[in-house]
C-alpha cells in the first residue's frame, strides 16, 4: 500500500485558478424545480471569510448520481446535469448556488454533499446540506438521527428565508457547523 499525498491549504490566492464561469449554476435559473441556496462562511470570531471556496456534489432530482458506480439504470440521468458546483465567497463571505433538490438515496434523506476550502484550512472540511421540507426523511436519515445534540443537527439543515434556502457555515465556536470525518 502507498501512503497518500498530504493535504495542504488552498491558500489565499486560488481565485484565478479554481473558480470558473457558471460554477455556481447546476441548473438554469428558469428550471421549474430550481432552488437557490445561499450562505455565508464565518470564522470563530464571527467574521465572514472572503477567501473560502465551496464545492457541492449531488444526485439529480431523481436521486441518481452521474458516476460509473451509480449503476441504477431505472433512474435516468438528465442531459446537462452533472451535479457538481463550485463557488468562491465574495467580499462579504457569501456564496450561492442554483440547483435542484436531489432525490433521496435510501436510507439517506435528500442532501447535498459539501466541501469547504479556505486559507487557514490545512485540509478541506466536509459537511452536508439537508432540506427543511423533508421532516420524515430527515428523521430516518442515518447521519441526522445519530446526532443527539439538536443544535448541532440543525446546522446541517438549510432554513427557508425569502424564497431561498439559507445555509451558513461556521468554522468554529459554539455555533460550529457539524463537519464530517469522511
Amino acid at each position: 500500500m502507498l501512503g497518500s499525498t498530504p493535504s495542504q491549504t488552498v491558500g489565499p490566492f486560488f481565485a484565478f485558478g479554481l473558480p470558473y464561469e457558471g460554477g455556481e449554476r447546476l441548473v438554469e435559473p428558469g428550471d421549474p424545480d430550481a432552488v437557490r441556496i445561499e450562505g455565508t462562511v464565518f470564522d470563530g470570531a464571527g467574521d465572514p471569510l472572503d477567501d473560502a471556496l465551496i464545492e457541492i456534489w449531488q444526485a439529480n432530482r431523481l436521486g441518481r448520481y452521474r458516476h460509473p458506480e451509480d449503476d441504477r439504470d431505472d433512474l435516468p440521468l438528465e442531459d446537462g446535469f452533472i451535479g457538481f458546483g463550485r463557488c468562491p465567497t465574495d467580499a462579504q463571505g457569501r456564496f450561492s448556488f442554483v440547483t435542484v433538490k436531489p432525490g433521496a438515496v435510501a436510507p439517506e434523506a435528500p442532501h447535498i454533499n459539501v466541501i469547504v476550502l479556505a486559507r487557514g484550512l490545512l485540509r478541506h472540511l466536509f459537511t452536508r446540506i439537508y432540506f427543511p421540507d423533508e421532516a420524515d426523511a430527515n428523521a430516518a436519515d442515518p447521519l441526522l438521527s445519530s446526532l443527539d445534540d439538536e443544535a448541532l443537527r440543525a446546522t446541517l439543515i438549510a432554513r427557508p428565508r425569502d424564497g431561498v434556502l439559507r445555509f451558513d457555515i461556521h468554522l468554529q465556536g459554539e455555533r460550529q457547523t457539524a463537519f464530517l470525518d469522511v
Partner: protein
Amino acid sequence: MTGVAGYRRDEPGTHPAYDTPEYGSTRLRAPDRPLIVLPHSLSEITGPVYGHERMGPLDDDLTRQHEGEPLGERIIVTGRVLDGDGRPVRNALVEIWQCNAAGRYVHQVDQHPAPLDPNFSGAGRCLTDDDGRYRFITIKPGAYPWGNHENAWRPAHIHFSLFGTAFATRLVSQMYFPGDPLFEYDPIFQSVRDPRARERMIARFDLPTTEPEWALGYQWDIVLRGREATPMEP
C-alpha cells in the same frame, strides 16, 4: 441500497491537523468540535467525473497562454496519479495554480512588491492519461514573503487540486522543489508531522524528463486514498 466499498482512512500523521498554531490563519478557522465519522455511502464514493469539454489546447502549457514567453526558468512537471494500491487514476482532472518566477501571484490581494509578468497567469489544468499521467509546462515559481511571522517566506510551490474518482478522494496539496532551504522554517510544510509524508510533497529532479537546450524536468507522483477491499454492510 446494498453496502458499498468505501475508501480507507489515511495513516495518522499523513495530513495536517486543522489546529496548527504555528500557521496563524488556523487560529479562528480550525473546527474545535470533533468531526463526526461518516460511513461512506453512494454520496462519498461518487464524485465529479470530467469530460474533455473544459480543456483548452493550451491549458497544460502555462508558458504559452499569452503573446510572449514568461520570464523565469522553464520547467516540465509530470507524474502519475495513483490510488493507495498503486493503480493509475485515469481521466482525472488535475488543476494547478502558482505565482510567477518573482514570487508574485496574479491576485489583487497579493501585495508582495515583486513584478507581475504580463506573459504569465499561473493557472493550468489537464486530464490524466491511461497510465494516470499528467504533464505541465510552466516556469519555476519563486519564493515569497508572507505575514505569518517575522521574516516568513514560503518555499517555492505549485498548488495542485484533484478529485480522483470520488468526493472522498478529493485532495488539494502543494508540490515543493527538492532541497529548498525554507522547508524547516515553513509552518505549512511542517504542518505534516510525519517526515515520510512530508517527503511525498517534494518533487524529484529527473534528467530523463529534462529536455536538452529547453527545460528542466521534475517528477511528482500523487497518491490518493485507497479502497476498502470488501463492501461494508449497510
